[in-house]
């Protein structure tokens, strides 16, 4: 009988709850991410979904301040640099401990640098064996072992580390603030090996609790955080994986999550109209472009490139398909970057001019087929990305709109796409004749934007575009440390890219994030490095 009574009460309670909307525990911040993290080892990952989580658990020597890319101290309290710019001395914060109790000191810093740098380091080698690479270290510091720009990392005393470089590097401090160079606990790394990716241990304001595969990652506030002033304001963080953007918004509206990234452009106005929700825009740091392959004979003709540039109605696309958060771009660097060239004037949108240019170039009948340098002829394929990125929030729609614009100027393209990894692969091998892609800045330095693309003339990755002068200007900018002088060089580079119509820049975007109104203190950083310790719920 008692059992029946208990059952009845269970049923009654269930019925009661069935009618109610969820009420959330105030101390848990639930964030809707665009997908599942790949890995939680900061040195290995390259994607924003994973780094969003590792940034809560780990910290680096430096970090970006608030909503800017200004570099400020993090685990390093202060630093000095030698006159020739090759020797950096960092003074570390005292009394910092990793979540597993390991002290954070000069030895730990040296250990981390050695793991990144030496392919024979046991915790580097085992990753390679498992098919993982330290991709970003290679990109930012020139390579591993002998190729590394960093030649020596030594512990002067327990709180002082000296790093020696082969040559000065303008963006060095900005590089160190990237999520990849966050410090992992040496003890944990040695204990877990490659499984560190599922058992992250850092010094950050949140500790890792659990990764429910396919669903969510759970973190909790680090009670022993070294800085009481910036300790976490919520007790728990849940990052839930909701791949579909509409589903994510539905969950936000239903109160199942507190915040989300990757809002559909068309949903921005929906969120703005909702009294319970708010939009926070991430300052723009991202540019979408259309790139040419210079092994295509037609594209070797500047008139043809310019015809394509003038046929695309950038403003129309940005106004209609970016939900009011985008702006037409005329150069690679977005306006906030200090290398941005304000005086640059874009080609005007003019389909008639495009037709004339094509006629001048010998394509009076319009452009439909292309010829590769090796003689292959084929219909002109225009490749669009299969996934949404901050610079192209809905690539398929944007591609269809551009294709229609081009058709009106006599340029017929076939739209093509493929799986994302294959897409990047084909691009890397120089197999795409005309394609969409873009870039989101990692560290706020112009070098990170422009040099990556134009410092290797003739690279297959960049469609074999070879402009030696441009590369020289950019490499010069990389070696200087004086910012005004560097800015001058980057402005000149942008003008050179534009004058040659090397590629067509379409849009900058301020990627929108959506939150419940009661979420306070979320600061959207241009590099997407956001720290949830400032977040509170009211």
């Amino acid at each position, binding site marked *: 009988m008692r059992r029946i009574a*208990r059952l009845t009460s*269970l049923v009654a*309670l*269930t*019925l*009661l*709850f*069935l009618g*109610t909307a*969820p*009420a*959330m*525990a105030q101390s*848990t911040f*639930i964030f809707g991410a665009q997908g599942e993290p*790949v*890995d939680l080892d900061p040195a290995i990952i390259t994607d924003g979904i994973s780094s969003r989580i590792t940034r809560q658990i780990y910290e680096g020597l430096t970090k970006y301040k608030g909503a800017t890319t200004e570099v400020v101290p993090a685990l390093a309290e202060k630093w000095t640099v030698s006159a020739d710019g090759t020797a950096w001395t960092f003074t570390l914060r005292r009394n910092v401990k990793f979540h597993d109790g390991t002290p954070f000191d000069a030895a730990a810093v040296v250990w981390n640098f050695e793991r990144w740098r030496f392919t024979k380091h046991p915790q580097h080698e085992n990753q*390679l064996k*498992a*098919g993982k*690479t330290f*991709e970003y270290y290679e990109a930012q510091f020139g390579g591993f072992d002998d190729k590394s720009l960093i030649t020596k990392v030594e512990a002067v005393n327990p709180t002082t580390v000296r790093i020696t470089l082969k040559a000065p590097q303008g963006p060095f401090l900005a590089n160190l603030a990237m999520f990849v160079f966050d410090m992992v606990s040496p003890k944990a790394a040695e204990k877990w090996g490659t499984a560190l990716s599922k058992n992250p241990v850092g010094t950050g304001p949140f500790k890792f609790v659990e990764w429910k*595969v*396919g*669903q969510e990652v759970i973190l909790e506030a680090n009670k022993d955080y070294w800085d009481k002033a910036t300790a976490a304001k919520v007790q728990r963080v*849940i990052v*839930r994986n*909701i*791949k*579909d953007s509409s*589903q994510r918004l*539905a*969950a936000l*509206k*239903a109160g*199942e*999550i507190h915040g989300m990234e990757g809002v559909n452009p068309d949903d921005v106005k929906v969120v703005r109209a909702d009294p319970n929700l708010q939009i926070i825009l991430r300052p723009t740091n991202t540019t979408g472009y259309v790139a040419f392959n210079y092994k295509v004979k037609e594209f070797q003709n500047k008139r043809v490139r310019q015809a394509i540039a003038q046929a695309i109605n950038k403003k129309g696309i940005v106004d209609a398909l970016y939900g009011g958060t985008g702006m037409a771009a005329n150069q690679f660097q977005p306006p906030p970057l200090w290398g941005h060239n304000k005086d640059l004037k874009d080609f005007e949108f003019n389909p008639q001019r495009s037709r004339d240019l094509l006629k001048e170039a010998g394509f009076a009948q319009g452009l439909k087929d292309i010829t590769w340098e090796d003689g292959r002829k084929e219909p002109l394929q225009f490749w669009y990305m299969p996934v949404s990125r901050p610079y192209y929030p809905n690539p398929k729609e944007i591609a269809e709109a551009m294709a229609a614009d081009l058709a009106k100027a006599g340029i017929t393209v076939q739209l093509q796409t493929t*799986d994302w*990894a*294959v897409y*990047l*692969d084909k691009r*890397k091998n120089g197999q795409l004749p005309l394609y969409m892609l873009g870039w989101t800045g990692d560290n706020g330095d112009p070098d990170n934007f422009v040099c990556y693309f134009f410092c290797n003339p003739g690279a297959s990755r960049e469609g074999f575009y070879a402009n030696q002068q441009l590369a020289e200007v950019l490499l010069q900018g990389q070696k200087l440390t004086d910012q005004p002088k560097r800015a001058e060089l980057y402005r000149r580079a942008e003008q050179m890219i534009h004058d040659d119509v090397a590629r067509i820049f379409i849009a900058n975007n301020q990627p929108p994030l959506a939150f419940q109104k009661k979420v306070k203190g979320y600061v959207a950083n241009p590099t997407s490095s956001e720290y949830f310790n400032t977040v509170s719920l009211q």
Partner: protein
Amino acid sequence: MGAYAIKRFLTIVPVLIGISLIVFSFIHLIPGDPAVAMLGERATPQRVAEVRAQLGLDHPLYTQYLIYVGKILRGDLGASILRGDPVLRDLVRRFPATVELALSAILIAILVGIPMGIIAAVWRNSVFDGVSRLVALTGVSMPIFWLGLMLAWFFGVVLRWLPTGFRLGTDVTLASVTNFYILDSLLTKNPQALASSLRHLILPAVALSTIPMAVIARMTRASLLEVLSQEYIRTAEAKGLHQGAVILRHAMRNALLPVMTVTGLQVGRLLAGAILTETIFSWPGIGLWIYESIQARDYPIVQGATLFIATIFVMVNLLTDVLYAAVDPRIKYD
């Protein structure tokens, strides 16, 4: 009976071998080098070589197949390319979500389909019969992804009555015992979790139930009509038994046998065919996993999950057959 079951069981062995052959051949349908296709841009030659070795691509085809089968028999369905996790472990982890959804859908289908079929049969050629036929045919013609979308839009976004994705609200914590959320909530006496998981189940289960509901209703009607036309019912009627009582007492038991069979077949189909529903409702079961893995080109998962589901499908069908034989005395076990 036991002999029949064993015999029937033995017939599926060649079928399972055939399934493994087809699933094995999947990897060779990929244009180009499967290892490169899987690894994409991050592939180092070393890693490609490893994956080739892992897939056994360097051996002749028949050896590759034997290696593959050997692994399956040891419970090794390969590992995810992206994360390196064993496929079987994650399959087992995700399967309860799919089963929970499929069984709920079948339950709805039975609760609606059988009464609908009975009424249609009793008042055959009436307006209700016509309508129920149209409803049933519409049910089998329904693109599930569209219905799911409409339900999510109307009940989730317009009316805001029900959640449109996932199995449990973020406000609820549930200790996982079996990973069947309803069962877990009951076991841990957690009414809040029970309510939340039920609310999350409603829309996807309704969307998924349309086809089985239609099939069950049609089958109930057809088999009931057949039974009703048989001699002994007429006799009973002649004896002056009230019609309702006749149907319930005599006809239903026999009429329900074929209904049971189609229901069993539908369970198998639902366990397999929830890809679209799970995708629409972000339901973290096997279907969604397959979809996501196709997008990520994580072929070992697609392969492993297909094999797993096809095996389950065959097993459920077998079970249905055996059960049918056990219940129906007319089946001879020769």
